C-alpha cells in the first residue's frame, strides 16, 4: 500500500501537528517554545501534577490528553520516538507546583531509557518525582515478566485516574499508589488487520497477508502474537477477552473497565460491534462492566485493528474514572 497522507515536509510533522493541536484547543493547552504541551491551568494548580512522554504519530495520544484532570505536561518526541531526558526534566520542573510530580512512562525501549535517565537527573537535583510505568500488553511476555510487557492504550485511563486523584488533593505517594494499583490490574491485547505507513519514510510498518490478522501486534507493527486467518468480529472478541480475563485471573462478580481502542482505519462501527460482543460475554460470565470507552485513543497511523483493554476496578478507581476532566480529546 502506497502512502497517501496529507502532510508537508516529513521533518516538520511533529511541530505542525502540535501547532494544530494547540490552535484548536487554545482554551485548554499551550505549546511552549520547545514543544512541551502544557495544561493552561497548571499555573494555578495546587496539587500533585502529571507529566508523561512519548513519540508522536499516535494521535490523539499522548498530547491530546493534556488538560485539567488528566496530564499536566506531555513531552512529545518525534514520530514514534522518545524525546530526550532534558526536555523531560524541564517538564518536571515546570510542572512541579510544590506537591510533587507523577511521571508516567510507557514501557518501550526508548521511552524507558529516557525515563530512567530523567529520574536519575531528577534525583540528583532533589526533585520530588515518582515514576509509574505502564506495561500491560499480555501478548509479548507473561505477567511474571511484566517489565518485558509493552505499554499500550492503558496509559490513557491511567492518566485519567491519577489525574483525578491529584485533583482530589491526594499526596504524591497516594497518587502514585493509586496509579500503580490501576497499572497492576490492567491488561491489553492488540489485533492488527492491515499495517500502516510510516509518515516520515512512507514505508509500510508491517505487512500482513490479504486474509490474515495478527493478534498480539505491537504499537509499531512489531510482531509478537500469532497470525491467523481473518475471523468474524465475535470470534476475535471472544478470543481476546478470554486471554485478558485469564491474564488478570478475573472471576465472576468482579467489576471491570472495558475499552476498545481503534488503531486508525478500523471503523467505530467495527469497534462498537466488538465492544458489544465482549460486553455480552462478560455479562454471561457474571462480570460487570462499570466503565467503558470505544474510540480511537492511541492510534498507529492508518493501521487497521484495535486494542482491547480491561482493568479490574474498585470503587475508588471508579470514582476517579468518573470525575470531571477537560482535555482536547477526553472531556467528562
Amino acid at each position: 500500500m502506497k502512502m497517501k497522507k496529507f502532510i508537508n515536509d516529513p521533518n516538520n510533522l511533529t511541530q505542525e501537528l502540535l501547532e494544530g493541536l494547540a490552535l484548536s484547543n487554545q482554551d485548554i493547552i499551550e505549546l511552549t517554545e520547545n514543544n512541551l504541551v502544557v495544561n493552561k491551568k497548571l499555573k494555578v494548580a495546587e496539587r500533585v501534577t502529571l507529566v508523561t512522554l512519548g513519540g508522536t504519530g499516535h494521535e490523539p495520544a499522548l498530547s491530546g490528553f493534556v488538560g485539567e484532570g488528566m496530564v499536566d505536561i506531555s513531552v512529545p518526541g518525534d514520530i514514534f520516538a522518545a524525546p530526550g531526558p532534558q526536555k523531560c526534566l524541564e517538564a518536571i520542573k515546570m510542572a512541579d507546583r510544590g506537591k510533587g510530580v507523577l511521571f508516567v512512562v510507557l514501557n518501550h525501549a526508548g521511552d524507558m531509557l529516557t525515563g530512567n535517565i530523567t529520574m536519575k537527573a531528577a534525583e540528583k537535583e532533589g526533585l520530588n518525582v515518582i515514576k509509574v510505568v505502564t506495561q500491560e500488553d499480555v501478548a509479548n511476555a507473561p505477567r511474571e515478566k511484566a517489565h518485558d510487557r509493552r505499554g499500550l492504550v492503558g496509559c490513557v485511563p491511567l492518566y485519567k485516574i491519577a489525574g483525578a486523584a491529584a485533583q482530589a488533593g491526594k499526596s504524591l505517594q497516594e497518587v502514585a499508589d493509586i496509579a500503580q494499583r490501576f497499572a497492576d490490574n490492567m491488561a491489553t491485547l492488540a489485533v492488527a488487520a492491515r499495517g500502516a505507513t510510516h509518515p516520515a519514510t512512507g514505508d509500510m510498518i508491517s505487512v500482513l497477508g490479504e486474509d490474515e490478522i495478527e493478534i498480539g501486534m505491537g504499537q509499531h507493527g512489531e510482531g509478537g502474537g500469532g497470525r491467523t486467518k481473518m475471523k468474524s468480529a465475535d470470534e476475535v472478541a471472544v478470543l481476546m477477552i478470554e486471554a485478558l480475563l485469564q491474564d488478570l485471573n478475573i472471576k465472576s462478580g468482579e467489576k471491570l473497565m472495558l475499552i476498545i481502542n481503534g488503531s486508525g482505519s478500523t471503523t467505530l462501527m467495527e469497534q462498537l460491534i466488538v465492544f458489544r460482543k465482549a460486553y455480552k460475554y462478560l455479562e454471561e460470565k457474571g462480570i460487570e462492566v462499570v466503565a467503558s470507552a470505544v474510540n480511537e485513543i492511541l492510534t498507529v497511523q492508518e493501521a487497521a485493528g484495535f486494542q482491547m483493554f480491561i482493568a479490574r476496578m474498585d470503587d475508588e478507581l471508579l470514582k476517579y474514572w468518573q470525575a470531571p476532566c477537560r482535555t482536547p480529546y477526553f472531556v467528562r
Partner: protein
Amino acid sequence: MILHKEEWKSIFNSGCAVLIDQAEMLSKIDAEIGDGDHGVTIKRIAETIKSAVDKWHDDSTLKNFLENLAGQVMGVAGGSASPLWGSFLEGMAQALEDQQEIDEELFKNLFAKGLEAMYEITPARLGDKTMMDALIPAVETIKTSEIDIKGMLQAAAKAAQEGADKTAHYQARYGRAKNLKERSIGHKDPGAVSMALFFTGLSQGINKL
C-alpha cells in the same frame, strides 16, 4: 602518547565520518529485526557530535565539552540509540575534572566511566544482542591494555568488531528485536554494528594523526 584538544577533535570527527558513511547500511540491518531507523538516528548523533566538535570553544574543557555533548545527543530525536550514546558520553565526562591533556591512565578511565554509566542505564550485558556486545569488549580491551593509546584503540576496534559479529548468533533480550524472540537469531544487532564502526573510526583517526 598524550592527546590534546586538536587531536581529540580529529579522532572524534573520524569516528563520526564512518558512522555517517554507513548510515544507510545501518538502517537496512535495523529493518530486519528492528524498525529500520537506526542509521537515521546514528547519523543524527554523529552529526551532533561533529557540529559540537566544530563549535568547541578554546576556553571550554574536555569535561565541559563532553557534558554538553551528552545532553545534545540525548536530545536527538529518534531511537533508543540517543539516550544510550548520551549516557556513555556523560559517563566519560565524569572521569574528568579540568584536564586538557589526556594520558593513557586518564584515557582508560574515560572509557571505563562511560561503560559504567551504561551499566546504570541498561540491564543489557554480553550476549543480550545489543550495542553492549561491542562496547563491553572494546572498553575491557582498553582497560587492560598495556600499550599506547593508538594501540589501545586499534585493539578495541578489533574487539568491538568481533563482538558485533557474534551478535548474529544471539537471541535479542533488549530493544525492539526482543519481541521477535528466536526470529532475531541470524541477524547482527544494528546497535552493536554501529558501535564497532565508531571504534573503527576512532582508531583510523588516531592513525592519521
